[in-house]
C-alpha cells in the first residue's frame, strides 16, 4: 500500500524542481507585473495606485502603436518568409545529392550561435551609407539605417538571416522522420515530385510546421536584440518593437507601472495569437 502511494507520488518529485523554478522566476514575476501595471511606480519609493491610467495611456500612445505595427511586421515576415524559406532550405539540406551536407548545415546554423552584437555590428557595417559593402555594390549611397522608411529593411534581413538556420534544422528533423515507404508508395502510384511534396511531405510535416510557426511567432513578438543593436529602435521609432518600448519605459525611464501595462498587453496578444493558432491546428486535424 505504502509502496503504491510512493510510486504515485514519485513523478511529482521529479517535476517539482521545474515547477518551483517556474513559480519563482516566471509565475511570481508575472503576477507582480500584473499588479504593478495598475500602479505608478518608479522602482524606489512606494507605488501609487492609478487604476487603469496606464492602460488608458497606452491606448492613446502613438509610439506604442507604432511599435505594435513594427512588431506585427516582424512577426509577419517571420511567419510568411522565414518559415517557407526554411522549409525549402531544409529540403535542400536533406537532398542526398548535396555534397558536404554536414558542413553546409553547420554554416546555416552558425547565425543562431553567433552573438547578436557581432551580427548587428557586421550588418551595421554592411548597410553603412557611406562605406557599406551593399551601397558599394549598388553604387548608390542609400541611407538604409537612417531613413524611417528603409530602416526596417536591414532589421528584417537580419531576422531572416538569423532565424533561417534554426527553423530549417527543425524542418530537417521533421523530414528525416518521414517514413520513406510513403514516398515509395507514392512513386509506385505514379506521383510526380511536386505531388509527393504536397501529398506526402507537407501533411507529414504538419506537426513540425505548427511547432515552428508557434515558436517563431512567440519569438518574433518579443523581438528585441536585432532592432536594439542595429538601429536602437530609431530613427524616430521607425524600427522600435513592443519589447524595446517596454524596455525603454521600464528600464531607461523607470516607469515600471507603464512598462508592466505594456507587458500585460503583449502577454494578452501572444496568448491570443497562440490560442488562434492552436484552434486552427485542431480544426485542420479534424
Amino acid at each position, binding site marked *: 500500500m505504502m509502496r503504491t502511494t510512493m510510486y504515485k507520488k514519485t513523478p511529482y518529485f521529479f517535476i517539482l524542481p521545474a515547477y518551483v523554478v517556474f513559480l519563482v522566476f516566471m509565475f511570481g514575476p508575472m503576477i507582480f507585473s500584473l*499588479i504593478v501595471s495598475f500602479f505608478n*511606480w518608479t522602482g524606489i519609493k512606494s507605488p501609487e495606485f492609478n487604476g487603469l491610467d*496606464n492602460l488608458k495611456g497606452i491606448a492613446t500612445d502613438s509610439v506604442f502603436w507604432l511599435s505594435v505595427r513594427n512588431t506585427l511586421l516582424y512577426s509577419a515576415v517571420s511567419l510568411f518568409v522565414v518559415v517557407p524559406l526554411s522549409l525549402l532550405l531544409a529540403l535542400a539540406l536533406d537532398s542526398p545529392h548535396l555534397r558536404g551536407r554536414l558542413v553546409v548545415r553547420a554554416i546555416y546554423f552558425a547565425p543562431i550561435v553567433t552573438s547578436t552584437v557581432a551580427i548587428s555590428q557586421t550588418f551595421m557595417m554592411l548597410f553603412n551609407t557611406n562605406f557599406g559593402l551593399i551601397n558599394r555594390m549598388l553604387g548608390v549611397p542609400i541611407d538604409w539605417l537612417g531613413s524611417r522608411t528603409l530602416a526596417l529593411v536591414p532589421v528584417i534581413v537580419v531576422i531572416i538571416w538569423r532565424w533561417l538556420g534554426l527553423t530549417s534544422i527543425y524542418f530537417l528533423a521533421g523530414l528525416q522522420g518521414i517514413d520513406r515507404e510513403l514516398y515509395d508508395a507514392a512513386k509506385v502510384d505514379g506521383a510526380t515530385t511536386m505531388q509527393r511534396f504536397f501529398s506526402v511531405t507537407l501533411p507529414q510535416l504538419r506537426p513540425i510546421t505548427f511547432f515552428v510557426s508557434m515558436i517563431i511567432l512567440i519569438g518574433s513578438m518579443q523581438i528585441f536584440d536585432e532592432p536594439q543593436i542595429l538601429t536602437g529602435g530609431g530613427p524616430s521609432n521607425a524600427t522600435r518593437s513592443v519589447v524595446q518600448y517596454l524596455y*525603454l519605459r521600464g528600464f*531607461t525611464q523607470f516607469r515600471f507601472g507603464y512598462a508592466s501595462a505594456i507587458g500585460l498587453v503583449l502577454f494578452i496578444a501572444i496568448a491570443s495569437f497562440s490560442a488562434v493558432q492552436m484552434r486552427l491546428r485542431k480544426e485542420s486535424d479534424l
Partner: protein
Amino acid sequence: MKKCLSVLLVLVVGASLLMAGGAKEESITPKKGETVTIKMWTHDDLYRQFFQKRIDMMNENNPDYQIALDAQIMPNTITSLITASVAGEEMPDLIGVEQGWFPTLMEDSNVESFLVDLTDKIGDRYDDYVQGRWALYTHEGKIYGLESALTASVYYYQPAIFEKYGVAIPTTWEEYIAAGKELAEHGVKIGVMDNDASGIFSLMFLQRGGQFFDQDGNLVLGEGKNREAAIKVLDMLREALDAKALQVVLGNEFWGSTIPTAFSTGKVAGMVAPDWYNTSVLQPGVESMAGDWSVAPMPVWEDGSGFRTSVWGGTGFAITKSSKIKDIVWDVLDDAYMSLDGQLDRYKTIGFYPTMYEALDSPAITEEEHPFFGGQKIGAVFADVALETPPLWQSPARPFLLQAMVDNLPLFIEGKLSSSELVDTLVEITERDAQL
C-alpha cells in the same frame, strides 16, 4: 480590490527596501595595520586605473592602514544601484555617475537616500573649480558628486584640408556655415551631426546661453530666451544641412568606425567635440593620422551671445550613503579629484582636462606639446575657454527630454519639422511623458 493590491505591492516593495542596506548609517574605523576595501562601481575602466594609482600612492604614505580597491565595471551604475537596493544586495562605497543617469536619482529626491551630500565637505573650495561642472550633480542646492572632466568643447580639424581648398578656420558659427558651404563644393563636410542624439544641437544651444531646465529642475526650453536660442541654433543647423555641410551619422554609429573612416578618407574635415573625445574616440580611431590634426576654439556667435565653449557629457564620483567607510572614501576622492596633484595626475593618467582653475593654469597643461596635434599646445586652448564653461542644469524630466530629442531630431533633419515645431514638440512630449 484597490486596497488589497496597494497593500500587497507596498508590502513587497517595502520588504525589499527593508532588506536593502541603503538606509543603514554605520561607520568603521580601521585598526592599525588593517586593510580597508573600497568597493567602487564605474562604467569605464579608465577611472579604475586612476583611482588605483592614487590609492597606491596614499598607501605608501599611510603607516596606519592600507586601502584596497575592489572595482566593478558595469554598463549603468545607477540602474545597478537601484536594483541592488531593492534586492537588498551589497552596494558600493564609491560610485561613478555618468551625468545622464543622475536625473534618475533626482526623482522623488531619491538621491538623498542613496548618495552622501558633499556640499559641506567641498565648502569654501567650491569657487576653485569650474562653476558649470557642479550643476550636473546638484539637487535642491546640494552637491552629490565631483566631476571627472572639464568637457569643454573645441573644434578638432585637419588643417591640410582647409589649406588645400584655401578655406580659413572658422571662428564664428556664421563663418563655420560659410566655410562649410565652400568645403561642400569639394565634397568635404566641415563637421558631424548625429541623427538621433542631442550632441551638436545641445552643444550649440548651451553655448548660446540656453538651458533646458532651470536650477529647480523645471522645464524651461519653451520659454523666452531658451526657446529663441534653440530656434536660432536649429535654424543654423538647418542652413548647414541644406548646404550639405554636415555629415549626418546615426546615433549608434557615433562611437564606431564611421566617423574615423570619414576623417581618414578626407570626407569630413573636423568636428566640434569635448575634451574627452580626443582621448576616447579621435586618437584611438585615427591613430595613423598623428600630426595631421589641430585644435581651434569652438566657433562663437557673431552677435556676442553666450559663451566661448560648451559642455558635453561627464562623469561624477559620489559616496554612497550605505558605505561604512565614508570618511576614508572621501579622503580618496578629495585627494584624487580636489587636490592640485590629483587633478594634474588625472590628466596625465587618463587624459581628462582638470576642472580646477589652478590645475588648468599649470604649465603641465598649457605648455605640453601634443604630437598628435603636430606639437600644438592644445591644453592652452582648453584653459583659455574654461572660465566660460556653461552649466547644464539637471531635472528628473531630462531622460524624457533626451528621448524626445532622439525620436524627433531625425524628423528635423529630414525637414519634416521646422525649428519652432521641433522645440514645441520636445516641450510637449517631455511634459507629457514626465507625468507618466
